[in-house]
């Protein structure tokens, strides 16, 4: 294959600006799929992605395009997630590309994630072509958006295709721009092999399927290959490229191609995303630069609702980790919840998605504990520990001081809501950095914020206070010293370890009060009164009471309804089985998660 006829690219956009719709349209217009095969949004092939309308996993597809110059081109389109939690996935996908299409909504203009994604693409030295989408909307204002792109990002946008991915308008312009404006891959097919792993998938029949971009050399069936970071060696069984929703085998992947390989790889840990594949007998001198390494920022405990399912949960997490390098986990135990795992995630959305995938794809019933960030605890003996589980906080007498992770947040908001958003940041212990008007009606606000303050419901609060007219992105800035305390929850006088969390001392009272109120709603009434207390150290700072149930009677029970009444009693008994027993109190599993959503009314 002629390298000059290959284009490896991705599409980047702010959430809901039409990235996946454009990808679908490109696939459809290039004729790799018949209309009948065209499932709405073919690239989002997880149920969850389709339901939520977001892309979680990177996906790739190879398509053939016959351009106006009469030549056939191979497009390798790599779809990327849009949400801030998945910057890492974006980063992995970008490394496999040579160019990027930037989709901007003709009505909304540039948003926070537009900027974040463009900067990521530019970081990877990708050529970026802007595309203005949704020009069929009555509120579309392409001229204004062109100006924004030129002023804020500094990309030439006068000739940017103006399209409607939904109706298919002007998609041809996009295809021609890909051919004419994006670079062909470089790389010598005869050089020592360097192929970058950008994703992988576990298949029960083929073993690990490794997604890679061949940068130098050629990857062929039968090659003996080595993973440069792990040192593991394999014989290649199959190579191929990505059809729409299927793997299509071929003989070799030369430099410049994007595709996959299998090699009967059983151990998921042998193929790390970001590693470089080379030939065992003729290795490359050095690996390709790895991806930007991303550490989990949010931790929580995941426990099987049924203790006997612990091994199943471990297996499921291992399988998910294969496809999701950002997911980390290690075993832990809780007095209230038994055996489970402390898991690390990129953000709260990532957490929710993993939880839902475990429940849906692996049929596990889970109990999730309150998420927290990684705190640094400096002890009086001069050592420092990174705290991911609040239960492991050393005794206060051993703590010199603590630090918490800080992010720099960029919020783009229409001018009507600037005050409301600044109030929100202030409430969340934000430090104002700057504000600039991008145009008359919109501003970019920068704050530093403790990560702890944004992992819960910052995004929801932002949306509700701006009536949806604010977008948000953030990046880690490091750690800062902070006055932190551990808030414990006592139910019927017993501390429930799974409900403890670390909180800024100034907001401990408020959070404790809300926790107690929320738990009061969640815990069903028992035959006795249940005090719910929030405590810092030995000091109780908030209290609620679940009143005792005083009356629960079947008024009538005669000859005709004995079987029915027995079923009622059985139902009552069954309901109890699905609860967690803490001391004498039965706590519904949802209670452990619902306490996160404290700001909902």
């Amino acid at each position: 294959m002629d390298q000059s006829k290959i284009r490896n690219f991705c599409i980047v956009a702010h959430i809901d600006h039409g990235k996946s719709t454009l990808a679908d349209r490109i696939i459809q217009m290039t004729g790799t799929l018949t209309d009948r095969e065209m499932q709405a949004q073919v690239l989002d092939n997880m149920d969850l992605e389709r339901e939520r309308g977001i892309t979680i996993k990177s996906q790739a597809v190879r398509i053939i395009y016959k351009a106006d110059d009469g030549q056939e081109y191979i497009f390798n389109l790599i779809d990327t997630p849009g949400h801030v939690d998945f910057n890492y996935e974006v980063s992995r996908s970008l490394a496999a590309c040579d160019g990027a299409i930037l989709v901007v909504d003709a009505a909304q203009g540039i948003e926070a994630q537009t900027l974040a994604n463009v900067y990521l693409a530019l970081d990877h030295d990708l050529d970026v072509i802007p595309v203005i989408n949704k020009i069929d909307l009555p509120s579309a204002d392409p001229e204004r958006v062109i100006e924004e792109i030129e002023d804020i990002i500094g990309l030439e946008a006068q000739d940017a295709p103006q399209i409607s991915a939904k109706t298919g308008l002007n998609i041809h312009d996009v295809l021609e721009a890909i051919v004419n404006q994006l670079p062909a891959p470089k790389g010598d097919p005869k050089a020592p092999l360097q192929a970058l792993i950008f994703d992988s998938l576990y298949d029960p029949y083929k073993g690990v399927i490794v997604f890679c971009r061949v940068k130098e050399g050629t990857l062929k069936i039968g090659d003996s290959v080595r993973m440069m970071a792990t040192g593991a060696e394999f014989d290649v069984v199959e190579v191929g490229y990505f059809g729409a929703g299927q793997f299509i085998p071929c003989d070799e992947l030369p430099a410049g191609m994007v595709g996959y390989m299998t090699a009967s790889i059983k151990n998921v840990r042998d193929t790390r995303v970001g590693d470089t594949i080379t030939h065992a007998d003729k290795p490359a001198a050095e690996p390709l630069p790895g991806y930007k390494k991303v550490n989990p920022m949010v931790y929580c405990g995941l426990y099987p609702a049924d203790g006997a399912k612990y091994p199943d949960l471990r297996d499921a997490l291992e399988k998910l980790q294969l496809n999701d390098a950002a997911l980390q986990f290690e075993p832990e135990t809780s007095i209230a919840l038994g055996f489970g795992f402390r898991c690390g995630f990129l953000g709260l959305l990532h957490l929710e998605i993993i939880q839902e995938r475990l429940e849906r794809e692996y049929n596990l019933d889970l109990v999730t504990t309150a998420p927290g960030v990684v705190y640094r605890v400096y002890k009086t003996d001069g050592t420092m520990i990174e705290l991911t589980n609040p239960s492991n906080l050393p005794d206060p007498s051993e703590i010199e001081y603590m630090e918490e992770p800080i992010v720099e947040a960029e919020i783009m908001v229409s001018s009507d809501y600037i005050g409301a958003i600044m109030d929100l940041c202030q409430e969340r212990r934000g430090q104002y950095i700057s504000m600039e008007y991008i145009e008359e009606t919109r501003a970019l606000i920068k704050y530093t914020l403790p990560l702890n303050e944004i992992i819960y419901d910052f995004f929801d609060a932002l949306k509700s206070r701006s009536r949806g007219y604010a977008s948000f992105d953030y990046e880690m800035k490091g750690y800062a010293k902070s006055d932190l305390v551990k808030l414990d929850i006592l139910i019927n006088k017993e501390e429930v370890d799974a409900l403890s969390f670390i909180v800024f001392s100034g907001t401990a009272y408020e959070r404790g009060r809300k926790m107690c109120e929320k738990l009061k709603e969640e815990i069903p009434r028992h035959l006795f009164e249940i005090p719910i207390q929030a405590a810092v150290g030995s000091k109780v700072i908030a209290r609620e009471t679940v009143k005792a149930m005083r009356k629960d009677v079947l008024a009538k029970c005669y000859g005709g309804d004995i079987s029915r009444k027995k079923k009622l009693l059985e139902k009552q008994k069954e309901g109890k089985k699905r609860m967690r027993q803490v001391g004498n109190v039965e706590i519904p599993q949802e209670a452990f998660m619902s306490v996160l959503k404290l700001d909902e009314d």
Partner: protein
Amino acid sequence: MTPIELYIHIPFCVKKCLYCDFLSGVFDEKMQRRYVAALCTEIKFQAKRHPGCIVSTIYVGGGTPSWLSEDLMDAIITTVKQSFKLDPLAEISVECNPGTLSSEKLNLYRSVGINRLSIGLQSANDDELKELGRIHDYNRFLHTYDLVRKAGFDNVNVDIMTGLPHQTIAKLEKTLNAVTMLRPEHISAYSLIIEKGTPFYDKYKFDAVKQQAGMQTEDLPTDEESYNLYKFTMQYLEKKGYKRYEISNYARNGKICRHNVGYWDRVPYLGLGLGAASLFDNVRTSNISDIYKYCEISEAISSGKNVPSEHSCAYYDTEEVLSKKDAMEEFMFLGLRKIDGVARSDFYNMFAIDIEAIYGPIITALRNQGFMDAKEGRLFLTDIGIDVSNQVLSKFLLDK
């Protein structure tokens, strides 16, 4: 001779009450006649299938059995007497609604041996009666009650309800006062249950959930108020000399309803008529509930045809053989509805095992929590145990 009870179902009402989910409906006299003929066929049929029994109680329930004309009631009781051996001291009850009785009817009842009447009053407040969709007002009830007494009935029950929408203690007190003043021998006081499939369900389902969860309600009393109404009823009736002998039942001078006590003691009983349930030889069955099918089966049987069935009898819709475990569970959750609870010796006699061997840890736990007590060989729920009896009784269901 095995003592058994008979339940006879009359599925007819002048009008359906808004809270009622019993098997009953409005049918014309032609249908009533057809049904009673079918019922008499079943009575004879079941008598033959259950030889060697002596009937200790009969309960004619509904629906509104008192709505049937005299000749139909006569036919039913006469058929029973002709088909079964009847204890001369048998308790024979009929459910009545105000406005459906006359002195002629009552004289007929007396003459065929009916010796106990149960009258559905529910409330002495006309606004509440209207809300419930009852066919009568309080004055109509007084008239009926007077007829009943004048006819010579000396064992009368009056039904009342607590937990009605917007019911206050004052309104309840008026009802309680009005009823106890009349000195019926027996009072049943039920807490309103919002049942699926009733107009009340459509109207109050959300409130019912809120009530259950202990939240603020709109029309129904809150859980707390409902508890207070129920407790008030109990205290009021006890003060007036009515002894509570089951969760919702009170009697004066020991005039308990023997028929109902039989259910809680698991005495064998045959249910006759549409949808009626039976317990016999540790098998629970229930009759079909389609009135046309029911009549057709009887008509086929009376014309000498053999009616095939997947069950042991053509009338049955369900048939459940109780295991020993089922029987033990029932013994407990039915027996503990009675204020004097269950006798340890009865459990042993029935199951040949000591009650403690099966339920020891549960009994101990409930006694420690104050929900249960024991005295003179009996185990029973305490007052607070009865208040939350669903919670307590569910503990007596055994794991599979």
